[in-house]
């Protein structure tokens, strides 16, 4: 087995699907940056670097797929919560459909 090729491929898949994963996580509930990193690491075993997460969130926001708001905390240090926009929800549905079709098509190749 070509370990190096496999690892490169894995990292490409991760990079390509990170936006999809974030959108799916945000559909259930709104979350703040650190929480998203924890959830991604716990649920899909991907360690995202903060340097990747925040620019990606910023782009998803520019594309109007997610929105953000500051929520005051008892500590006095507010959290920035991200949530799915309406456009984000409908785009995510289309992404899931595409994902499932692709996955089915790939599995049929056998």
């Amino acid at each position, binding site marked *: 087995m070509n370990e190096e090729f496999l690892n490169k491929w894995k990292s*490409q*898949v991760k990079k*390509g*699907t*990170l*936006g*999809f*994963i974030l*959108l799916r996580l945000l559909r259930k509930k709104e979350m*703040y*940056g*650190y*929480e998203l990193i*924890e959830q991604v690491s716990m649920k899909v075993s991907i360690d995202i*670097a*903060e*340097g990747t997460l*925040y*620019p*990606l969130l*910023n*782009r*998803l926001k*520019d*594309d109007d*797929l997610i929105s953000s708001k*500051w929520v005051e905390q008892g*500590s*006095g*240090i*507010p*959290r*920035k919560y991200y949530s799915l926009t309406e456009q984000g929800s409908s785009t995510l549905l289309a*992404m899931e459909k*595409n*994902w499932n079709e*692709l996955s089915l098509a790939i599995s049929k190749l056998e």
Partner: protein
Amino acid sequence: MKRIEFTDERAMSIYTDYMVRVERMTKILPKEDQNEILMELNSHIYEAVLQDNSKETELNKLVDVITRLGAPEKTLAQLVADKKMNQALHTFNPVHLIKALALNVSNGIVYVAFFILYLLLAVSSLLIVLKCIYPQNTGIFLHNGYLSAIGFIGNSAQGNLTEIAGWAFIPMVVAYLLICYFALTLLLKLRRKRTASTKTHAMQWTD
């Protein structure tokens, strides 16, 4: 913005130093974006230290978070370049544009191309200065009734050419610069929208 209070003096100084570096890195952005980034990182550090259940000391927890975050000069480079470009395209301000293009040069040859095109445009504005100094040599020139040259020509070439624009040449150059500038900026906007969406949308490799 409320700062995090660490009881450990060394932790406090590492944290302060980190935040100063973040401030320095984001200085190029509008105040609002600066605050937004600073506050989000502040919250990130606070949550990460607070939610670290290990028996480590406060100092070790902080060092761990900051190590994970990485140098702000590196971690924030992409975010700052993105936000600067947004600002530049939003305001149409040439100074922001040049800065944003410089920050984005590493993001692809297309930004280098835009940089050169803007530079050419800036050079074209010299025609206004030339018209003021050498009014006879600058303008629109006809040769036997046909358009022969637009711009600045040397004395030797001027012989059988007639300049027809006169002082109207200056507003013409200004109009030309404005049109090109807006067209180029719109093109950049369009180009950026395309890259942003291909970068963001998952499963891009299925395309």
